[in-house]
């Protein structure tokens, strides 16, 4: 453990350690900290560092933090604690801020009565399969369009991107009919995972994101692999995929989260109560459930996406920004 001596490794900006041996001198002197003005914004740093500017700044900060917490966190708090209250306490006026006695019966009942295990399992199956199939189909397609450049590749890409112009809701009826009786094959995909998986893979936006990333991979890298005798498939798997991890992560998360959150499409194509996804299951059973059980099931249904968000928030937000600036 000799890293105490390695001073250059210290993150930039931290003040150097007190050089003097007198430790008593450290505490009292604290210079007035100026605001971080690395990014100049609408408000000028000078204004911000005046006394008046500081007061306004802190007032705004407190107001924003309090009101945003009330608007965005409080409803979730209310949901989670609401499920712990008894049915009578839920309807009490005035409402209790904390549950009188915390009980997890609501959660247990929700799990049993609604069959949340099955619903969650179904949804995981739909999301997982959609993820694998989307990656397999969209990555190969984007690779072909970006690096192999077949004839009519531009037309195909344009046609795929054109589907982004067609809002999914307006073609839901013919899409439903297609799933019900697949042309040429005549298969009925209703109530099968394929009804979720295959349409999820036809995602022009994923292909666009992946293609744009693949375009940025230098040609020389692929040519080197080709000279070494790698087939295009091998190049994709061993060269392109490993360096595309960030974008593959974004596409994966977007796909899983979208399938998990989707409502309308599973509502149409998975009418069987044994095959429902969690959102549909809860919605269709909501009217028959006691209020606290229903709320508990809402909490359980939102846990998976919330966990994904807590872990991958950086990638999710990156995907969002990439989505807005496409062109």
């Amino acid at each position, binding site marked *: 453990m000799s890293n105490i001596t390695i001073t250059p490794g210290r993150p930039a900006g931290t003040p150097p350690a007190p050089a003097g041996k007198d430790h008593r001198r450290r505490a009292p002197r604290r210079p007035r900290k100026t*605001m*971080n003005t690395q*990014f*100049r*914004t*609408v408000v*000028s740093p000078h204004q911000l560092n005046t006394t008046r500017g500081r007061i306004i*700044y802190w007032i*705004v900060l407190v107001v*924003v*933090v309090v009101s*945003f917490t009330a608007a*965005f*966190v409080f*409803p979730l708090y*209310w949901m989670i604690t609401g499920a712990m209250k008894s049915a009578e306490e839920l309807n009490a*006026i005035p*409402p209790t801020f904390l549950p009188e006695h915390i009980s997890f019966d609501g959660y247990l009942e929700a799990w049993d009565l609604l069959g949340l295990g099955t619903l969650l399992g179904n949804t995981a199956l739909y999301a997982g399969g959609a993820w694998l199939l989307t990656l397999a189909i*969209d990555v*190969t397609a984007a690779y072909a369009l970006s690096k192999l450049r077949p004839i009519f*590749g531009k037309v195909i890409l344009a046609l*795929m991107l054109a*589907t*982004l*112009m*067609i*809002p999914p*809701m*307006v*073609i*839901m*009826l*013919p899409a439903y*009919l*297609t799933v019900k009786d*697949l*042309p040429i094959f005549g298969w009925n995909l209703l109530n099968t995972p394929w009804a979720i998986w*295959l349409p999820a893979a*036809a995602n*022009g936006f994923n*292909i666009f994101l992946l293609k744009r990333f693949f375009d940025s991979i230098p040609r020389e890298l692929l040519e080197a692999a080709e000279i070494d005798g790698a087939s*295009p498939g091998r190049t994709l798997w061993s060269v392109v995929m490993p360096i595309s991890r960030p974008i593959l992560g974004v596409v994966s998360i977007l796909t899983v*989260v979208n399938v998990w959150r989707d409502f*309308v499409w599973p509502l*149409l194509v998975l009418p069987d109560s044994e095959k429902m996804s969690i*959102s*549909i299951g809860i*919605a269709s059973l909501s009217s028959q459930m006691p209020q606290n059980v229903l*709320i508990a099931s*809402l909490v359980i*249904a*939102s846990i998976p996406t*919330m966990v*994904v*968000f807590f872990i991958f928030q950086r990638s*999710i937000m990156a995907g969002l920004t990439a989505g*807005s*600036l*496409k*062109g």
Partner: protein
Amino acid sequence: MSTPVADRKQRQPTKRRRSVKRNLTAYGFLCGALICFAFFSWYPMVWEVILSFQQTNFVDPPVWVGLENFRTVFNDPAFAPAWINTALFTLLALLCGYAIPFVIALVLNELRHARAYLRFIVYLPVMLPPAVGVLLFQWFYDPDYGLFNQILGFFSLPGLQWLNSTSTALISLVIVSTWMNLGSGTLIYLAALQTIPSELYEAAELDGAGLFKRIRHVTIPQTKLILLVMLMLQIVATMQVFIEPYLLTGGGPEDATISVVYLMYQYAFNFGNLNAGNALGLMLMIVLMTFSAIYLRLSRDNTV
């Protein structure tokens, strides 16, 4: 067209063969996507148009009926309310869901503390499954013991009927929708705001521009394109409103919240008239494609 190709073939046989092989490989890679797109995007798109002009029961061969389906939906008493509500919903959702995120982004961009926390919680509702968000608000909206009326009661204000009254039902849907979708807009604006070069603000300040003038003459022009792009995107997204009326109101009370997509769903699955539903879908598709086209146009200009 055939002669130059044949010409080249004679001149460069090896190159041509290699290119055939490469094309075959490429199409091998593409075939999965082509099949998925063909079945689930392109074919339904074309079929939507065809079905709108047909009468089918999926047993007998389809009959072409011209504009009959359009006439059916047009004469439906719910037709006008559905379009008016959709337009109103879009307008209100834009007022809230467009202006508020921009203001939030402006404020967040100024703050030097708690940024990560604020960004995180603003985006939190976006990650909630929409069905969960909607059902949660259904509970909040309950006129007797719902959270909102309790809060109003705390300030000794009279409770509202929320979803049960024709005057507040639509605005209640707008509130849910705004709460659920605010985060994505905010983060996109925030990203755009951070690309504005600080020299512009400094220059404006030297010219004596105050805070609001700086926002008006620097911030807004600098983010104009993203603002326009988001406007189109929001219009397209909010005009497809379905889950809120489906789960919260069933289109009621008295058609006060019926939307075009919801009516379309009803035609197909409740009234058993898929073709009329399709006709309605086609009308909406034409309207939305106009906005989508503007959006694509704008976002292309934005980056190229």
